[in-house]
């Protein structure tokens, strides 16, 4: 029996190979079925996707098991875990480095395929067959990549180490348990939108029905991306110890780009569903969004751009991923070039219309994504031209990002209330000019009263977010004809949109305030001493040591006073992880809706004194609160009745189609 348990890594690997086989069949059999018009072959898509997901889960759990029982004969476990690591971190160590992250990635792909297989019962069988076949292709590529270049089950035999290394201490944290899986769900989820787009291209049926099928899936992936990015930012904020929450790091950019394009895709799908327009553009966005997800994987995994996140700097892996990317993106763009409809869509719309606003929104989002893409790749191209190594600083990204997002917020405010086909600036203007004036006046006066000075960026940020908020409320007011009881009747889709747009406004307020009014101070502080920062007095109450399971730390307790009242006790730590000998700062943060107090430890000085960094960050929480609003908005939109109601009708239609297929 024990021998059987010692073979778990082999079972894991075997399961991965079986998953690969399932995925390969999932590509071939349904497509042959489509080609021959044989529904019984197409029907294999669902069970094969199920099998694939099951084997991937077995594989992932096997690896987790190896971590939990400290099987250091597995090289990946030995490199990333040790006996002293607490069990939750042993589990999160599964995706703490390259090989395991990749296994998680393919497992999630398997789970999305599973979800598509079982939640899209209403889709015509040939569509399901195509969609799952396309997802199978992606699986085949990435499982092969895992098995060939990054096998997490490789053994360290015959000399298994008695003790493992350690999980990167940066990653020993709750944030790491949840952030990568959420983000991966988002990345990988975009494969569904991609598969629907490719399936539609293959079948030549780019219609409103396709957009409607694709929309909830795109929204689901987008929600995961939104939450994943917010979690990543939150994690960097409290774990990296210098109070920053966005660094324009290549890996952050790699997650933001697909989000921006997915946001564009969501809006473009709305046009395609409601008006049958922008079909080619929507397909292109779906391809673009998933390509950026893959590019993100490529950038992070190949070490082409080196950053804190690039666990694996291995050019051979890079070449494999590049080949995958080439086949996947190149192939789909070629298919697009050949099969995308060239006929101008039948629907017409005027210069001032909802279509036009959505088009503008799409253009802005895509331009922002491209600007970030260029900023991320530029250093690479520069190096490649032999001009030397350089980095594009945050300044460049901010210069591009800020004005474009301000423009976007303005468009969102007006666009959300515009009408399809034709609208007039006069109508929109009449409703919105008071909001615009109120927003600007408020954005100028409030900061003047509170801080006594006028900052251009603050006025800009506050005016657009107040404008967006007011415009949103005016729209709800008009649509519900001033009666609150009518609001629920406006439809989940609409309410979701409202919530998400308010989220954008909340995030803009947060970003504006924290970027312009944060204060900080680096001080030398000894036990018993006090330091004042803004309205707060920080008192060094006590210093000491803490012994954790796999680290020891110096800790300092602070009492924080506001108007001589004790408002908070903070404990900052500086941990030394024994296995790697690396040092991590654990910042202490006092959180409230309108400000964060942030204390992090620097270097020890003489007589028990420490170098400390004190920060007050107003409205910090709003940055992430907005993201939560957006995600909830997305969730509401997914619940909209029409996805289910029409689905019911489709069941009969699909059954009819199936029968028709058999008869034919």
């Amino acid at each position: 029996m024990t021998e059987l348990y010692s073979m778990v890594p082999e079972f894991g690997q075997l399961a991965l190979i079986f998953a690969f086989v399932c995925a390969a069949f999932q590509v071939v059999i349904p497509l042959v079925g489509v080609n021959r018009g044989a529904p019984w072959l197409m029907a294999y898509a669902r069970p094969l996707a199920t099998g694939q997901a099951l084997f991937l889960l077995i594989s992932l759990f096997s690896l987790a098991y190896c971590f939990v029982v400290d099987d250091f004969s597995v090289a990946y476990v030995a490199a990333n875990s040790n006996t002293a690591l607490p069990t939750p971190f042993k589990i999160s160590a599964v995706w703490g480095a390259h090989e395991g992250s990749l296994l998680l990635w393919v497992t999630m792909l398997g789970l999305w395929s599973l979800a598509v297989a079982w939640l899209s019962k209403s889709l015509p069988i040939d569509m399901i067959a195509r969609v799952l076949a396309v997802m199978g292709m992606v699986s085949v590529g990435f499982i092969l990549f895992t098995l060939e270049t990054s096998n997490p089950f490789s053994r360290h035999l015959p000399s298994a180490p008695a003790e493992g290394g350690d999980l990167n201490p940066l990653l020993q944290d709750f944030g790491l348990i949840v952030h990568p899986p959420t983000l991966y769900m988002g990345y990988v989820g975009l494969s569904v939108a991609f598969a629907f787009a490719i399936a539609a291209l293959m079948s030549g049926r780019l219609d409103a029905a396709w957009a409607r099928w694709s929309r909830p899936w795109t929204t689901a992936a987008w929600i995961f991306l939104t939450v994943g990015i917010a979690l990543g930012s939150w994690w960097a904020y409290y774990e990296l110890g210098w109070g920053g929450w966005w660094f324009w790091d290549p890996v952050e950019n790699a997650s933001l780009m697909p989000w921006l394009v997915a946001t564009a895709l969501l809006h473009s799908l709305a046009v395609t569903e409601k008006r049958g327009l922008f079909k080619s553009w929507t397909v292109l966005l779906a391809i673009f969004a998933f390509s950026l997800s893959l590019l993100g994987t490529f950038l992070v995994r190949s070490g082409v751009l080196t950053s804190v996140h690039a666990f694996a700097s291995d050019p051979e892996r890079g070449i494999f991923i590049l080949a995958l990317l080439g086949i996947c993106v190149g192939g789909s763009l070629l298919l697009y070039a050949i099969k995308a409809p060239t006929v101008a869509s039948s629907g017409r719309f005027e210069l001032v219309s909802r279509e036009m606003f959505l088009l503008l929104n799409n253009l802005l989002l895509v331009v922002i994504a491209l600007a970030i893409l260029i900023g991320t790749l530029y250093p690479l191209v520069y190096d490649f031209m032999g001009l030397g190594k350089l980095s594009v600083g945050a300044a460049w990204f901010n210069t591009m990002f800020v004005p474009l997002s301000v423009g976007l917020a303005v468009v969102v405010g007006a666009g959300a209330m515009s009408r399809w086909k034709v609208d007039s600036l006069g109508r929109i203007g009449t409703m919105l000019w008071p909001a615009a004036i109120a927003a600007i006046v408020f954005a100028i006066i409030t900061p003047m009263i509170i801080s006594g000075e006028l900052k251009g960026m603050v006025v800009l940020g506050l005016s657009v977010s107040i404008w967006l908020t007011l415009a949103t409320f005016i729209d709800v007011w008009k649509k519900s004809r001033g009666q609150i009881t009518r609001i629920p009747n406006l439809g989940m889709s609409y309410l979701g949109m409202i919530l998400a747009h308010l989220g954008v406004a909340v995030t803009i307020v947060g970003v504006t305030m924290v970027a312009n009014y944060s204060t900080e101070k680096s001080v030398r502080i000894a036990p018993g001493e006090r330091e004042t920062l803004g309205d707060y007095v920080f008192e060094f109450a006590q210093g000491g040591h803490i012994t954790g399971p796999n680290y020891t730390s110096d800790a300092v307790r602070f009492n924080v006073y506001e108007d001589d009242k004790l408002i908070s006790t903070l404990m900052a730590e500086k941990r030394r992880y024994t296995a790697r000998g690396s040092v991590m700062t654990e910042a202490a943060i006092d959180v409230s809706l309108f400000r964060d107090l942030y204390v992090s430890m620097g270097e020890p000085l003489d007589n028990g004194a420490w170098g400390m960094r004190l920060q007050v960050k107003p409205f910090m929480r709003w940055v992430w609160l907005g993201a939560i609003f957006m995600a909830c908005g997305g969730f509401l939109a997914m619940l909209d009745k029409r996805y289910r109601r029409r689905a019911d009708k489709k069941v009969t239609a699909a059954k009819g189609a199936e029968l028709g297929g058999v008869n034919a």
Partner: protein
Amino acid sequence: MNRSLLFIPLGIFVLMAVVFWIGLGQEDKTSLPSPLIDHPFPEFSLTVLEDSRAVTKADIVGAPALVNVWATWCPTCKQEHTFLNELASQGVRIFGINYKDNDEKAKDWLMSFGNPYIWNLSDPNGQLGLELGVYGAPETFLVDSKGIIRAKHIGDLNPKVWQTLKLQFEAME
């Protein structure tokens, strides 16, 4: 709409793929320029891991040598170790810096996997490592007979990497 327009995305992508392709093949990302290249190896006064005697930089200079930064917590170092043993048997002078490590563990390691080093510096706090700009183990410095650092390699030494480093090493005085 003209169909040829639909080929534009494909064209852009192919262009990017070519850039990436060349970027990958172009150079070893691990040979980042170090400000220490062509500068003297930093002065130090530390103890030898094996027998605790005090040594300084003067004990390294005299002939070309490799200075290898390693630790028992570093799995790549273990991968690399076999190759270091091989190099040592070919007569390459290798000094070790046991970086941010536990002396006892390090001695055990050398006992069990063999000792390719002439001797090892014990650098438990990573002081020397800091001066050398080490940001991970393993790293290897090529130091000439006058004590000048001529090259630096980040990551493991293996036959492939050694092919190029060897030329540099043999050209040194």
